[in-house]
């Protein structure tokens, strides 16, 4: 399998002395849907900035599809599409002109550019808005416009920096479908997001970055397999005033109100086992739902572990 991205010992020290990247190494395989997670200021956007050449690295090497970004500028940029976190198109231009201009920057002949422009504006439900000034678009439309713009030269690798931030649930789901379809058609996708559910739903592999270091780099499946606890919210058919005694069962529970409580159990406990637990204690359940995103627990756990390791060095 070809390596889409190979980052080796990448460091970035900004002019003010802030060390944003402390020698990260990372590989993403072609065709992958890869999540890059981390808290604010962890180094995600700096990493993307280096890949897109908006940030100059201090040291290390970066290769895109086996070509060094420093020595193969044209080829590596042609293979790369970037959807940034912040809106970065002119607010005064028409939607179609923004996409056509981007195609022009990549040296695309006008006829082909017009075809691609229509293709992606239609796919992202923006074709009806093609003659509107970009400032009149809604927040979600602006994000979709940035995706259409990034795809117009049909890159083999697409990097999305928090593409669904501030986007409503319905639109987020439709974006997920679009990105999944794009990935299935062969485009390698790297995603940074604050919505951990998004990463869990979409991505096959994951890296967690914190304080300029990669603290986890594994498959989503392996990461989730490490989860040992699960929290549920239980809605009750009959109200209760106090929670029952759980005996020897390793359970943590707290009453939210007389009609619901929260319970954390071992991930190995089956649903049948959980309901048996409730029935034995006379708890009548009307509804049950998972409280928190599973990945969120792991994410926070990994960050805590990593910071502990650094502090102990």
């Amino acid at each position: 399998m070809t390596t889409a991205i190979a980052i080796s010992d990448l460091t970035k020290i900004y002019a003010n002395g802030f060390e944003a990247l402390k020698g990260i190494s990372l590989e993403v395989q072609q065709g992958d849907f890869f999540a890059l997670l981390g808290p604010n200021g962890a180094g995600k956007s700096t990493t993307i900035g280096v890949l897109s050449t908006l940030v100059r690295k201090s040291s290390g090497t970066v290769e895109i599809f086996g070509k060094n970004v420093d020595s193969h500028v044209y080829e590596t940029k042609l293979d790369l599409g970037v959807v940034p976190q912040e809106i970065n198109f002119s607010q005064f231009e028409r939607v179609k002109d923004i996409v056509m201009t981007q195609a022009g920057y990549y040296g695309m002949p006008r006829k082909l550019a017009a075809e691609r422009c229509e293709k992606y504006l239609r796919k992202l439900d923006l074709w009806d808005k093609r003659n509107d000034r970009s400032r009149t678009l809604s927040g979600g439309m602006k994000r979709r416009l940035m995706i259409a713009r990034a795809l117009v030269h049909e890159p083999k690798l697409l990097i999305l920096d928090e593409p669904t931030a501030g986007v409503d649930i319905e639109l987020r789901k439709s974006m997920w479908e679009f990105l999944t379809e794009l990935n299935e058609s062969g485009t390698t996708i790297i995603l940074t997001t604050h919505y951990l559910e998004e990463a869990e739903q979409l991505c096959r592999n994951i890296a967690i970055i914190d304080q300029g270091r990669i603290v986890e780099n594994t498959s989503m499946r392996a990461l989730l397999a490490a989860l040992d606890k699960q929290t549920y919210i239980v809605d009750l058919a009959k109200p209760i005033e106090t929670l029952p005694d759980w005996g020897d069962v390793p359970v943590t529970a707290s009453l939210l109100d007389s009609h619901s409580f929260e319970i954390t159990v071992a991930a190995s406990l089956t649903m049948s086992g959980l309901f048996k637990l409730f029935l034995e204690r006379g708890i009548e359940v009307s509804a049950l739902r998972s409280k928190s995103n599973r990945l969120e627990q792991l994410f926070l756990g990994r960050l805590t572990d990593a910071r502990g390791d650094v502090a102990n060095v």
Partner: protein
Amino acid sequence: MFKNHKYIAFETIVIKEVRRFVRIWVQTLVPPAITISLYFVIFGNLVGRRIGDMGGFDYMEFIIPGLIMMAVIQNSYSNVVSSFFSHKFQRSVEEVLVSPVPNAILLGGFIVGGMVRGLLVGAIVTGMALMFVDLQIQHPIITITVILLTAVVFSLAGFINALFANSFDDISIIPTFVLTPLIYLGGVFYSSSLLPPFWQTVSALNPIFYMVNTFRYGFLGVSDVSVGPAFVILVFFGVVLFSVCLMLLNRGTGLRS
């Protein structure tokens, strides 16, 4: 990889730049036409009648080349500085920075955009001037060459200003406190022969003085300076500013962190 990708990228930037200033023509093309018309009416017609001849020509005829040159300088500069800084401010400059456009092509596109606006405004001003006097061009090649070179030089200067600018104040400081005084003291409204020897020497240090006089030579056939050295100065500034712009772009100054 697309065939002719560099040319297409260059053409894209030029079209985008021209489309920008044409879209806001009320801000970019109308004000200089009105301002320069007022100069013609007030300085050329009303005040000029009392001044009489200047350099052997009717005062109105004398100031027209300088006023055209002033319009070209101001508009070439302001087009590039305001457009490129606006791209920086809105972060839309990232569109071109992440794409494979070579720095020289990026620079060339913005410079040509600035030149087109400068020359278009120059043509509008020339058209306005034709309403006041019957213009004759004595040396068309010199006239065209000097106006083209001037537009290049000031577009490049505007680009450097935009690279270093961090706020909208930063893009008005140089035009207000440097460019305008140099233009007014560059012999637009008077012949340097009227100045005392000391101020004649000071004028010789002003590059715009050479541009205005060489342009006037193209129109009227008279100049306070020799044409040859004036061209050398123009080409020198053009080469130096182009090299500085390219060096700053390669370093990522003001653009890449």
